[in-house]
């Protein structure tokens, strides 16, 4: 699936988007896999209370299932307006 990063999450990980092969069944499972990859991922996902997630462009919780999902995005709380 495609994993997207925005704002300081993008900066910390160093790329805006990547294709990820995962065995995880929930968003949190995917986060744990990413954390285990490299220090920059561990740093970006150190405190998930500071993060928000969108599943197929809809805001979701970290326990959301990944079944059939094509796009996941991680980003800090939004600051529009």
């Amino acid at each position, binding site marked *: 699936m495609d994993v*997207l990063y*925005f*704002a*300081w999450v*993008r900066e910390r990980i160093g790329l805006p988007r990547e294709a990820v092969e995962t065995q995880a069944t929930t968003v949190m499972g995917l986060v744990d896999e990413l954390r285990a990859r490299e220090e920059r991922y561990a740093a970006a996902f150190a405190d998930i209370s500071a993060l928000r997630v*969108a599943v197929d*462009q*809809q*805001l979701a919780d970290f326990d959301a299932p990944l079944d059939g999902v094509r796009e996941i*995005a991680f*980003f*800090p*709380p*939004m*600051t*529009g*307006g």
Partner: protein
Amino acid sequence: MRICVQEAPFDFGAETAAFAAGRSVSGAVVTFTGIVRDVTGGLVAMEIEHYPGMTEAALGEICSTAITRWSLEDALVIHRHGRLETGEMIMMVATAARHRKDAFEAAEFLMDYLKSRAPFWKREITAQGADWVAARDEDEDALTRW
């Protein structure tokens, strides 16, 4: 309903005039515009990142909710992204309803939701560097009103 997510400036006067002129049943039109301000001193510019695709979907959903809840005749959201200088307009919303209370409430609802639920991220550029704007607790708290 019209949702515009764009890098280019928008013509606030022309947009408000067209929105108000297009009314047939509404007696009340409310608009809100946000302008880049150098609040702390030293701001060079504001950069706004967004999530193409999700941004339009989220704004459309927020707008549809407002139209239904306040029986609006129409609603408009324009939000810019990219680099904006001090004094430039960031975004605007407009609402049209029969009565002023509905037009006001719907505009405040749109603003509260697009502050915290539309995927935009602001970064302030100063001579010292660039800082992501932190979400404010009071913006999140504002949602509990609705």
